[in-house]
């Protein structure tokens, strides 16, 4: 195992944990498919950021993605509330329309946008060790994605630690939150903003679409394995890291997409969790007994 291998796995692990944490809240709020929509809809934002800045400058890409992520969230809300369109159709129309726009932009401006469509969708995590951050004085600080993703993870961890109570409350009982004067809408947008950031920072390594497998798989597996929130977050993170490591191994063995392999491992992990869950249910004791008065 070379340093490069470790760097690749580390990158995957950072993506995995960030997405596991965010994805757990998405799952509990029933917003998984909005997360899906955002991970697709940031594509035009990335393309436009490229056109505007002419480079892969992450700051501008982040801004472009965040913008389109919030636009997606707002668009879906608007269609549901003002245009009175059913929730699933609102999501479907917004994300397919924006994704189509993204592909058109990338195809049309292929000369100016140094983005390979395959790369956008599947990522190319193998290039991570090559994308180095070199200081003006020549010191090599390591791969850029590792720094960026590390920063993202720190930000997400900080969010969860600092804003644990409002996130919990608005996820569990938005009506009670509203009655107490705590805005569920604000926290919705904050969460989706983070999902947008996670998507764009991850797309170069695992691709826009496969970010979704990290957002959905580990949290779903953890949800089936535990009935407490903190263990769920930890389990999801652990499952994600494991998938990053094993997935890399699988990809090397089959000589295939690393991100795809990671998704397959996630699927296997989920299948195991499901089997455990079903087994536990079958052998569980009687349903909650009526307590004495």
């Amino acid at each position, binding site marked *: 195992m070379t340093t490069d291998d470790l760097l690749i796995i580390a990158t995957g692990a950072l993506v995995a944990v960030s997405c596991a944490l965010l994805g757990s809240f998405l799952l509990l709020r029933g917003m998984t498919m909005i997360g899906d929509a955002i991970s697709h809809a940031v594509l035009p934002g990335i393309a436009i950021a490229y056109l505007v800045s002419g480079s892969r400058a992450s700051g501008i890409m982040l801004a472009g993605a965040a913008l389109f992520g919030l636009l997606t969230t707002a668009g879906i809300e608007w269609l549901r509330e003002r245009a009175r369109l059913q929730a699933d159709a609102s999501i479907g129309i917004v994300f397919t329309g924006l994704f189509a726009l993204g592909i058109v932009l990338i195809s049309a401006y292929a000369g100016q946008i140094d983005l390979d469509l395959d790369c956008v969708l599947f990522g190319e995590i193998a290039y991570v060790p090559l994308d180095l951050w070199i200081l003006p004085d020549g010191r090599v600080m390591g791969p850029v994605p590792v720094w960026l993703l590390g920063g993202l993870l720190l930000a997400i961890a900080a969010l969860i630690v600092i804003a644990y109570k409002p996130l919990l409350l608005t996820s569990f009982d938005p009506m009670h939150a509203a009655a107490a004067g705590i805005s569920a809408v604000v926290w919705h947008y904050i969460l989706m903003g983070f999902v947008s950031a996670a998507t764009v920072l991850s797309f170069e390594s695992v691709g826009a679409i496969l970010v979704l497998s990290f957002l959905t798989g580990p949290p779903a597996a953890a949800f089936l394995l535990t*009935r*407490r929130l903190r263990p769920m977050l930890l389990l999801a993170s652990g499952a994600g890291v494991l998938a990053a490591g094993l997935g890399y191994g699988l990809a090397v063995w089959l000589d295939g997409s690393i991100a795809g392999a990671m998704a397959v491992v996630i699927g296997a992990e989920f299948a195991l969790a499901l089997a455990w869950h079903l087994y536990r249910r079958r052998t569980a004791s009687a349903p909650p007994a*009526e307590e004495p008065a």
Partner: protein
Amino acid sequence: MNSIPAIELHSLTVSYDNKPALWNTDYTLPEGVLAGIIGPNGSGKSTMLKAMMGLVQPASGYVKLFGQPLDAVRQRVAYVPQRSSVDWDFPVTVLDVVLMGRYRPGNLFRRSSAHDRELAMECIRKVQLEPFVGRQIARLSGGQQQRVFIARALAQQADLYLLDEPFAGVDAATEAAIMDLLREMRSQGRTVVVVHHDLQSVAEYFEWLVMVNTRLVAAGPVADVFTADKLQQTYGGSLSILSQVGELVRQQAHPVRETPRPPMP
């Protein structure tokens, strides 16, 4: 009796999907009573509570709590919704939920204090759920789940409690225990309002009554309003003209007030 009423509804009309669910409702409810709200299904009882809590916007009129708009007195009001309003598979324990009753916009970014925790435990004891403190909420019976909600409301230490059908799907023992608790709260000077569905127990439980059937039928002391005549008006079918007009309002998307609501006095 010049004290400010706990609740005042003034010309309150609330629409649901463009159709008025509650017409031009007007009444006051004094402080310190144990009151019931009764009426047939779909008669606007839950809608009334939601309008009081600002969860739905009225098409006309206003609500005042303790003489003020809701925003000024949020800390003094606790709302216990129907059990179906929450996903019970959520990975939280009884203690987690009751602690949420202590959350305020001002303390959201700090850990719950020791005082908060003690208070939550006390409320859990009051509803006799202490053995279940660490249990995840899906693994509770219906009656236990209802008591979790009540404990959360108790933890808010409010002056006004609004409960939406707290006895639905709950066994007799739990119902008796909850009623004892509500009586205790009332004897401490709090105001308790309960949307209730069982006519048999009205006289025994409540001292004040609000009778609703898409519009107010009666509001006042139980002895005065709980009569055969008022019951007939409440449960004997809706006012047909009112229903027809409500349907027209919905079809034509007609405004219920010509001018937007004036600011409340």
